[in-house]
């Protein structure tokens, strides 16, 4: 972290004159004049149940775990400066590889009245519009031991700048250090049939984790359309798991991080009740150049059965140009899902979804439900199951890893 802290003084010393900007001459406009700081966060207990017999020894049926996240936020200098500090910790009673600490965020931002801003530190960002797959979202490494939907992310060290204009928003990112994906340990579920040597990662770039990654993104809104165009150049966040034979004769897996150039497009059209969503990428990686896309819709029925509840129907199609040679299992898959929001005092929600591989007929099912209890507590129930997996499927090692998870969290 030394690297970043040494940059902060320069950053806070910046003035509008040092950076090109469109000075509109408005008074300081990030609201609060007095410095504001606050702590928030949660602590949660979680129980994961894998009812099916495990694939191999070492894996078990019950996985109790605890997690906690704090967030410190401070704004000062008439709201022109912001600091975010978001530590996270997970303790898993069975899978030691799942027990880990992360800085989701530790970043200082300067927001300038001249319509630009600059941030330095660890940040978490999200790019994208679709629900079933996040193709375009590429800056943050996935915290894969937290969940399998790719929504949990590790903080990414970066220096970033944003420029806001009438013609859209332009963001530039420099990411000097790469963070490896968290992977389950020998005891972990869903896991792999062979041991994964997580600390023996190999890189395509000789600079390894110090390969300098860059990204740029342009986004804009015109009437019912929200769109973005982005490009990323650097180390792919998703590893390829390669196998090798150790001196003992045992076959093991290790993550291989290849270089990637990826250009992404996201489009969403929003009408009264329909959301139309599309994400597409063209990329160049160790398999050459290829295209991938995901697109679909979400339609909401408001006030179903004369109640306050809303029902959202979601369907998306996922496609990979390389078909079964793709690094992704979602090469020709259809997702169908339903979201029920009760709109009650306790914010009760249900989400159920299925992803069907239209070629292999493999089926992935997932459910999520949550409800607030009182003012500070939240109860969540999640489950998933993979059905009908063929031995050629990249997810074959998860064929017995259906799961039910209950989590009780206390927010403060």
């Amino acid at each position, binding site marked *: 972290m030394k690297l970043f802290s040494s940059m902060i003084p320069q950053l806070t010393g910046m003035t509008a004159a040092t950076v090109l900007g469109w000075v*509109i001459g*408005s*008074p*300081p*406009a*990030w*609201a609060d004049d007095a410095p*504001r700081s606050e702590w*928030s966060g*949660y602590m949660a207990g979680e129980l994961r149940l894998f009812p099916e017999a495990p694939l191999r020894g070492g894996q078990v049926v019950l996985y109790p775990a605890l997690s906690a996240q704090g*967030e410190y*936020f401070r*704004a000062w200098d008439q709201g022109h400066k*912001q600091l975010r500090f978001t530590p996270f910790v997970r303790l898993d009673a069975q899978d030691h590889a799942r027990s880990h600490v992360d800085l989701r965020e530790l970043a200082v*931002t300067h*927001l300038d*009245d001249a*319509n630009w*801003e600059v941030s330095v530190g660890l940040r*978490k*960002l*999200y790019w*994208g*519009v679709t629900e079933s797959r996040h193709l375009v979202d590429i800056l943050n490494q996935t915290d894969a031991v937290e969940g399998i939907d790719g*929504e949990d992310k590790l903080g990414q060290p970066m220096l970033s700048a*944003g420029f*806001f204009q009438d013609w859209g*928003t332009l963001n530039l990112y420099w990411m000097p250090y790469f963070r490896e994906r968290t992977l389950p340990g020998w005891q972990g579920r869903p896991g792999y049939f062979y041991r994964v040597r997580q600390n023996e990662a190999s890189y395509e770039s000789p600079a390894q984790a110090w390969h300098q990654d860059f990204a740029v993104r342009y*986004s804009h*809104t015109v009437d019912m359309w*929200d769109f973005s165009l982005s490009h990323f150049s650097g180390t792919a966040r998703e590893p390829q798991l390669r196998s090798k034979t150790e001196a003992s004769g045992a076959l093991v897996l290790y993550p291989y991080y290849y270089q990637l150039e990826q250009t992404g497009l996201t489009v*969403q059209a*929003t*009408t*009264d*009740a*329909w*959301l139309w969503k599309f994400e597409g990428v063209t990329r160049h990686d160790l398999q050459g150049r290829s295209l991938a896309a995901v697109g679909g819709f*979400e339609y*909401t029925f*408001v*006030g179903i059965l004369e109640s*306050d509840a*809303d029902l959202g129907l979601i369907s998306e199609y996922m496609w990979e140009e390389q078909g079964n040679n793709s690094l992704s299992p979602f090469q020709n898959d259809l997702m169908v899902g339903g979201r029920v929001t009760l*709109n*009650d*005092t*306790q*914010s009760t929600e249900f989400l159920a979804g299925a992803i069907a591989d239209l070629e292999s007929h493999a089926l992935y099912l997932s459910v999520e439900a949550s409800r*607030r209890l*009182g*003012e*500070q507590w*939240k109860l969540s129930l999640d489950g998933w199951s993979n059905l009908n997996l063929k031995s050629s499927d990249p997810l074959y090692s998860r064929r017995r890893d259906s799961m039910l998870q209950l989590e009780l*969290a206390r*927010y*403060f």
Partner: protein
Amino acid sequence: MRKTPRLFPRLLLGTLLLLPALGSPQAQAETSQEKGLRLVQEADKQDFGYVDLTAQLEMVLTNRQGDSSSRKIRIKMKEVADDGDMSLSVFDTPADVKGTVMLTHSHAVKPDDQWMFLPAVKRVKRIASRNKSGPFMGSEFAFEDLASQEVAKYTYNYLRDEVIDGRDSWVIERRPAYAYSGYTRQEVWLDKVRLQPNQVIYYDRKNDLLKTQTFSGYQQYLGRYWRPSLMLMVNHQTHKQTTLSWLDYRFKNGFSDREFHKDGMQRTR
């Protein structure tokens, strides 16, 4: 979230210039529809020019059994020339939704644009505007009750003069002109002096009595703009109620448009 409209449909600008003094007797043959519209336009004109504001909101939801729960929200609003207001709401409680931000660009007749920022996944989502009739955060306020009340969102009909809570008011019926409203019609008690509502009664899609909203604790800001400090919404069908307290109004903060932009939402706290 202002109760007072401030959008002048262009075709009406001409007639506005010819407006007589407030409440003066009209040239004969003004219909009740014309009178209703005229009064609302006068109220709209009176409230125009507040530029922007911030306020702290506390919502207290009470169910039939008397159990209550609260939501704390900070709101920023900004006027837009020739269009509806922009508003940005940040949730402070309940704790599990803390940091959630809702951005609304309201329009007269075309649907409002709305985005939501979900802090847990750092995701900005544009949401469909159809759920106007749905409850806001489980309260007795629907989204449409809290939306910017532009003149063109309704058609009007003046009903009568009436004193309510000691305040001289015009009673005006209004019918939503926008799609997906949960209401057939509303009756608004518009204060003759403040030109702000003292009460609104809502009738559901079947034209049955649904809710009564009362406004109290009005204060005048900048020597011109009246704002309530308390709104009470009582649902006669479910017997639930929600109070909405407005505290710490501050006007003319000099907000830039950028603060009401979807790409700025992840920095709002």
